[in-house]
């Protein structure tokens, strides 16, 4: 899958969960500090990404997600 496409989908899903404009997201911002991501919303994001990209994200990987680029990187690594 193209990187741009992954970025677009991940941003879209995150924006839907957080009620934000996907075009205004900073992919390197801290999701918890900058956007107020809660553990429940993080769980939703991970669940949706797993289903959308048909991957499994384990506990350690989930714990290391701090910014959207971490999610995007994880998807790219698991999709290759």
């Amino acid at each position, binding site marked *: 899958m193209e990187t741009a496409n992954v970025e677009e989908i991940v941003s879209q899903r995150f924006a839907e969960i957080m009620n934000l404009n996907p075009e205004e997201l900073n992919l390197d911002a801290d999701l918890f500090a900058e956007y107020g991501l*809660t553990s*429940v*919303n993080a*769980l*939703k994001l*991970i*669940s*949706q990404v*797993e*289903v*959308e990209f048909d991957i499994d*994200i*384990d*506990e350690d990987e*989930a714990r290391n997600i701090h910014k959207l680029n971490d999610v995007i990187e994880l998807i790219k690594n698991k999709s290759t």
Partner: protein
Amino acid sequence: MTKVLLTSVFRPFGEASRFNKAGDEELLDYLASRLTREPGLFALSSFVPASSLHLIAANLPAETRVLETPSVEEFIDELKKGPDYVGISTLIKGFGKVSKMIALTRHYAPKAKVVVGGFGTALDEIEQLKPDYISKGEGVRFMRKLLGAEPEVPFIHPPVQAQMTLRIFRDYDFLDKETMGLITSGFGCPHACDFCSTSAYFGYRAIPFLSDGKAMYDAMKKQCRDSNGKTHNFLIFEEDLMLFKNKVSDMGELIEKDPQDSLGYACFATVKALSRSDLEKIIAGGFQHVWIGVESMAVPYKKGEGRDMKGLFDELHSYGVTTTGSMIFGLDHHTPEMIPGETEYMSSLRPSTCQFGSLLPATGTELRKRLEEEGRIRNFDYRESDLFSDVLIHPNFKEGQLKEVTLKAYEELYEAIGPSIYRLWTTWFAGYKKLNANPRLGLRKRAEVYASRVKRLRPLFMQTGAFLPNDEIRRQVNETLREVASEFGPATVSEHGRAELFKHIFALEEAKSRHLEKKFVEPSLKIRDYGPYMENVAAMHSFSAA
């Protein structure tokens, strides 16, 4: 026709993941993980089905498929068939899995409406997962309303059954397993103990499901006849059955007068309600096992008021009524020094099976609210929400200590009063001796049931003495074997053969437990389809007419 898919959360349960702790699959075995959680090889085993899903499915104006413990792939396969509604039943432990199952439904069945139900909905966070509907409390009426049906039309009870055997016998298909039918009388509990998630979940009131004693009897009788008489023992879900005197009395009269089958039931009841019950009457009416919440020697709950606890347990046992005693560690008054005394007290009651648990401040309870206010909830992980969790901060216990003393109590009880199956056996034998010559037909019928069980279990103890916990228990077992022989005659050739077989299985299983790595026992997928309500009613009526 509306299509509904009802499902439990997905497996696996045994592997540590972001969805569950390692070993969670053991908690699915209701007996081995809780009521007969004991060292050694005599522990019992029973995987209890998702009863509530079947109750809902049988009572909807829809074509409904029930999935129990599907894998993710099996769940996806069902989603691809395009259900109109997907109902997911969960405990708090399953929160992470629900999140994934909602995402899967949105992806593979985008037109389906998602309903989340079960005790997990006590978590406020469920709303943040954005299911279309949340069914808090009783689910049958909720789903009927959702599908546009009248919620109070009489309910029918589908057959729901669990198998029981020794844990080490699970993989030996040639050994018979006991079948137990599951009957739901009602939900909720008016006693409102502060820790009780059931009581809180249903709003501190009793919500009826089966309307009266006749409906209860009919549901049991149908399961019994459908199984050619093999299913005659039942577990009735009602938090304090003996509060419902008319229901118990009407059901008991029908059971006592039944010329064909000796139906019997296990139930939950309080000391308070049992103290007001006519024991001989309810025993003649099939009452054969009761779970009593002992909670603590100090009896801090109103439900424990009434008869002396020890006197009640002793009298029940004398009639062959087996018991489950449950106790909670970590109540406010507890100190580590008090726990051995609590365990000794439980031993003195000699319950047939026993549950020890750490105090679990379940979401939605008064206890949880209070402890949150007092800052006494440890950093919470959904996966930790079980009987042996360490969620509570207790001023008298170090972190991890409550779990440690809870698990140790099971070992001490086993050393003091032996395996659960032995306690069941001796209680049935005592009941047989007391009721065998009773003038009341219903009580003599109970004696016959007890005699059959005592004889059937005898081979289990004939050559397995080496696997008992200590010499004192070995002496007691040998004494009981002598008494059984005196009452029923010496063991037959067939019984000696079974005893020999059991000895070999015990030796083999002990060697395996020493030398082989423990393997997960994951449940497999179970699927059951239900037609619309009226078809199910017709099936029930054809039984009643017959």
